[in-house]
């Protein structure tokens, strides 16, 4: 089976994130950048399916130059090839533009399955998997906590995680599947994987190469715009609850007031 995984490089999950006042965009230049955590799970699942079906895994990202680091990490984990959609005019694309660009890139390629993480830790929209499926006209199977493929019948069956439990959803291949954390435990890149990654193909593709219309991508063509933003007010002093027999009630009231219960 041929599997494509879409990944994103995001600012380090634990680092403080910052908006650039000049562009109202996330400042991606400062600080460490990492492979979006849920995308690691998608890569892991792709590798497992490929190992079981003698298939191949190609990883795709759209992002600035340094996003190649995230691709290299997936090659170290064991992916076979990587494609970097890199073009200045893509900067500032919203989910609509991103899904258009990726769908155009993917439509020209052969695949049985597209895997994605169900959300990125920076924008956190969870929109891309659904939009991508829609644009490609393929079954969209999101929030998968388990994926089973039948290469002969050409079907995919997932456990779609819901608040109550899970739904079993079946679709035909090719399909677009997004995964949740529960699905697996991503492997550590082994030393052999790390050393082999250098020799694997990492292709860089421009808008023109991929036949992507520059008028439909980038910040200037985004459907939504950031009008204004403000710093979150500093965290105020907390409340100390001392246990005079009522502490449990006070805690429960607090949790209820914060809508955590």
């Amino acid at each position, binding site marked *: 089976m041929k599997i494509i995984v879409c990944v994103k490089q995001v600012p380090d999950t634990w680092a403080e994130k910052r908006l650039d006042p000049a562009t109202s965009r996330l400042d991606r230049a400062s600080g460490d950048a990492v492979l979006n955590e849920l995308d690691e799970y998608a890569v892991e699942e792709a590798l497992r399916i490929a190992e079981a079906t003698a298939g191949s895994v190609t990883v795709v990202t759209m992002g600035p130059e340094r996003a190649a680091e995230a691709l290299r990490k997936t090659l170290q984990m064991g992916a076979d090839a990587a494609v970097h959609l890199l073009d200045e005019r893509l900067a500032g694309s919203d989910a609509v533009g991103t899904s258009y660009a990726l769908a155009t890139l993917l439509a020209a390629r052969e695949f049985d399955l597209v895997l994605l993480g169900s959300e990125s830790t920076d924008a956190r929209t969870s929109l891309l998997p659904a939009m991508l499926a829609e644009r490609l006209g393929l079954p969209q199977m999101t929030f998968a906590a388990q994926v089973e493929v039948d290469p002969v019948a050409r079907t995919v069956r997932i456990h779609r995680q819901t608040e109550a439990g899970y739904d079993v959803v079946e679709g035909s291949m090719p399909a677009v599947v997004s995964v949740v954390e529960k699905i697996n435990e991503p492997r550590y*890149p082994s030393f*052999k994987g790390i050393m082999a990654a250098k020799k694997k193909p990492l292709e860089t593709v421009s808008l023109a190469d991929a036949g992507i219309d520059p008028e439909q991508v980038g910040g200037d063509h985004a459907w939504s715009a950031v009008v204004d933003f403000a710093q979150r007010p*500093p965290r105020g002093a907390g409340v*100390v609850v001392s246990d005079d027999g009522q502490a449990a009630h006070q805690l429960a009231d607090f949790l209820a007031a914060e809508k955590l219960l």
Partner: protein
Amino acid sequence: MSSDQSSAGAKGPAKAAIDPLDFVDTRALLSGEERAITDTVRRFVDDKIVNRVGGWFENGEFPAREIAPQLGEIGLLGMHLDGFGCAGTNAVSYGQACLELEAGDSGLRSFVSVQGSLAMFPIRAYGSQEQCEQWLPPMATGSTIGCFGLTEPDSGSDPGSMRTRARRDGSDWILNGRKMWITNGSIADVAVVWAETDEGVRGFLVPSGTPGFGQYQIHQKMSLRASDTGELVLDDVRLPDAAVLPGVHGLRGPLSCLTEARFGILFGALGAARASYAAARSYAMERQQFGRPIAGFQLTQAKFASMVSALSQGTLLALHLGRMKDDGRLAPDHVSLGKMSNVRTALDICRLARTILGANGISLEYPVIRHMTNLESVLTYEGTEEVHALVVGKAVTGLDAFR
């Protein structure tokens, strides 16, 4: 729900230019591949070791059969060797891996040092094709565990005085003697045993279960408790000629292995130091005495300044020696200097860190006392601090002060 004192002071978007745990940005000196290897080991240690190792230390155990296959899967066992299932990384990567392992525990790093540098290295360097094919692939995956027997009850710093003897009997060899303080000794599937023969010191591969070969655990240790240390007893052990390492005669054999392992230690010890320093730092930011965090006192800050400069210097030395090794310019004297200097540095850092934790500094709930006492073994094994001082002193003066 108590007020968060530490974040109240840190306001504004200003990015800290300084990483307190890597003050002079030594990470920038690593290649992409070296960083990836470092990160893999760090993540493994954080996920699989850190939460459990205090308990192992307390109980005096190391679950080698559980952990070794995981180390093998990552590629840590014999990582700097070529072929026979080994990853074949460069020397700096090997050093970095040792550092990250020892940030977990010196016992864990010792396991990997012994397996890779003391047991697999001599087989790779001096073994026959058949010996390499038989032993190296399962040792690389961690299904077979090795050990290295040089030290004896009456022969430590002066291995030339060893009493273990091997004599020929037809085409076989007969071994007699005792080996002491052998890491992985009681659990090993194969021991590389160095013995005196009529042809000088030679290395033998002794499989566990060979008649006359006894393996016993050493108890009552106060250091390196999360590591097996054993005694090997060789009582008329009969081995075929195929068990002797054909490629080396004389003390050069075991000493070359030790140079490999020591190279890992001069990085590794800094891992223990970094972990202790990190623990002291986070403790000091939280711990309040006299109405404020103890990190705010000048004496505590002087300790941090001293620790972080020593750690930075040690790391730069290690990386420099690593580059020299990768360039083929590293002499055993360089390794002696690095081992002596960095283990001492690490021990001093751990002792300072320990004071910052007050009474908690002697508790296994924190990693510091464990690292500190572990380093007492690291100071002694692979050549004591004094012996390395003599090696350096000889290189400096040309005068031999050993005897």
